[in-house]
Every structure is written in C-alpha cells, then in structure tokens.
C-alpha cells in the first residue's frame, strides 16, 4: 500500500513518538523493593530507657498548599487536618540517688530529679485527615510523594514552635512530675516531701 506523500511525515512522527516513549514506559515497572525476612539484614536497635512522661500536649494543625502560578495551566490545592502529640517528663536513667536525703525521725525526704525535657513527638499518620484535594486544567492532584513532603513541612512547623519555647510544656511537666512523686512518697509513709529538679 502506498502512503500519500503529505501523510508520510505524520506517520513518521507518530511512529517516532511511540518508539521514543516505549523505553520510558518499560523502565517504569522495575521490581519493588521487598522487606528482608532476615532480621540480621535490617537496621535495628533496642535500648533500655527510663523516661517518665507526665504531660501530653495535643497540637492541631491545618496544612494547606496550593500551586497556581500564572504560567501554569490550571491549579492544584490540598488541605490536611492533623494532630501531633508532645510528651514531656523526666529521664530517670539520669536520676542520682546520692542526692536524695532522708530524715527518718521526721519522716521527711528530699528528692532531686533530673531536669524535665521533651520525651517524644508523635504525629500519627492515621490521624492525618485529607479535607480537600483538587486539580484543574493540565494539573494532577498532589501525588503521594508531594503530599508526604507537605506533611513533613507541617511537622517541621510544629517542631519549630516547640523548639522556640512557645508552649509551656516543660513547666507543666515539672508541675505534674512534682505532684506524681509527692503522692507516691506520701503513700510510702513520708510526711514531708520536697521535690527538686536539677538545673
């Protein structure tokens, strides 16, 4: 069959487009990495700790982003609602028992505890709610990788607030730890309990 001359270029273009794209399509489906069954092949670490957490803050954040520069055709936007949990207290592995003073005759005790600190920061993925996600024109909705990047920025924003001392979590932790030890030592029979914190 003879192809008419004006359509030869078109056919050639179509064939070239498909040929150029095929290697790209094939490269998209490599085998997925799998978790090794052997524990020895994985990076694992177990440590003994002694962290007594006495206060928990729940921080709520709206994470929103949009991408709508004028030269792009269409726009896309996303909105998440998420919770983060901060726990603070004392690290009892740093407890120095030589600083504890007991007066048996007066049933009085003075305990010096390590300085309070932030114990953990938790932003559970199951509590991250996607409220809105839309894309218009030649745009896709945010991909899983892009959404993950936005959530990481949200986490960074909360951590920055914690680091800047915006929350009184350490003061609350000190107060709650003091109450916890005062009650415990009262139950153990002490009539006078003094709780101090290292500076």
């Amino acid at each position, binding site marked *: 069959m003879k192809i008419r001359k004006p359509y030869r270029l*078109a056919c050639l273009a179509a064939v070239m487009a498909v040929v150029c794209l095929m290697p790209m399509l094939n490269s998209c489906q490599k085998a997925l990495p799998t978790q090794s069954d052997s524990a020895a092949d994985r*990076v694992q670490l177990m440590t003994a700790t002694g962290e007594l*957490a006495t206060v928990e803050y729940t921080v709520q954040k709206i994470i929103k982003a949009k991408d709508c520069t004028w030269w792009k055709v269409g726009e896309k936007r996303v909105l998440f609602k998420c919770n983060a949990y901060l726990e603070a207290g004392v690290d009892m592995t740093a407890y120095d*028992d030589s600083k504890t003073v007991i007066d048996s005759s007066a049933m009085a005790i003075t305990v010096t505890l390590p300085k309070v600190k932030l114990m*953990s920061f938790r932003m559970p993925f199951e509590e991250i709610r996607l409220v809105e996600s839309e894309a218009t024109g030649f745009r896709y909705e945010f991909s899983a990788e892009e959404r993950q990047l936005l959530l990481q920025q949200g986490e960074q924003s909360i951590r920055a607030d914690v680091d800047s001392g915006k929350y009184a979590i350490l003061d609350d932790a000190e107060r709650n730890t003091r109450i916890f030890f005062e009650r415990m030592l009262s139950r153990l029979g002490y009539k006078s309990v003094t709780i101090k914190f290292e500076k």
Partner: protein
Amino acid sequence: MKRIMSIVLSVAIVGMVYLFVADAYKLWPFNPTLESLKIDETPNVVTEIRSIKKFTTACFYEDVTVSEEKASDSFLKNLLSQRDRICLIGRGTIRAGYDFENLADDAVRISGDTLFVRLPPVQVLDTICNPQDCEVFIDDGNWPHDRVQAVHSDLQNALVDDARKCDIIEKASKSGRAQLEKLFRSFGFTTVVFS
C-alpha cells in the same frame, strides 16, 4: 497547502500520543518540582493538655520497607499489564513500658523495710513514625490518601511485630524493674518485691 496540512497533522498526532501517555504516567509539563512545594503559614493550636504517667523503659528503632501494588486506573497501563506501585521507607520507634494510670490503689504495700509493688503489665506505649521519618521511595500511579494511610498502617504493624520478635516486652519489663528497684531503694526500702 498540503505541506502545512501534513505538519499540522504530525503535530496533532505527536500531541495526542503525548497526552495519552502523560495521562497514564503523570508527565504533565506544569507540575512543580518537589523543591518548590511550600505549605502556607497556619497556626499550630494546642487543643488539649492532659496529665499522664507513662514510664517508657525500652525503645526499639528500625528501618522498614513496605511496598504495595494495585490495578491501575489508566487504560494504557492496563494495556501494558502495568500496575500502580508505591514503596515507603520508614524509620520508626516503638516505645514500651508501664502506664501508671493503670496502677491500682492497693498496688503498693509496706511491711517494715520491704516494699511490695504490683506493677501494671508492660505494654507497647507508642509507635512513632512521623512524616519526617517516612520517605515515599516509589510513587507510581494514582495513590489516594486513604490507600497511603493503609500502607502506612502496614508499615507500623511491621514495626510492632519486629519489636515484639526482638522481645521488647521482656526487655522493657527487666529494665523497668531494675530502675524502679533502684528508685525505691533510694527512698529507704532495703527490699523491693515486684509482682
């Protein structure tokens, strides 16, 4: 005129092939680079402050890889027998210990210099795998948020399973008892008996 027609037709065919493939493989030209993505400034609001009594006595850290495949929504990918795939790499922390909220009122008994303590059971207190601890290594196809959440849930379950296989409960129990014994001894008791 015929030459112009053929050029227009060629461009149209290449364009159509491109659109077809771009739709299947997210090759739109106007998508942002990951570096340019920024969230808007929004306040972080403390919604609850509560008193807790969690004593973490063992921590387990691990890097876990979880992959998932599903049938693609794209006609072209289905035609080529290709599937949508995702692979997450997570660095998680499992914290185990005692929750003293569950300590019974009669859990502590004194007999002379001996202290009897009935401890609550050791449990996994927290599974921590925050967004900054998790990387989307492969993101191929359309993965809605709820599907990613399910994959993330698998990742967390794998972390907890591995921690239990490494005897986190026993180690937390041993470490916790040693630390509590040291603490109670410093409070003037010569013998501490746990049950």
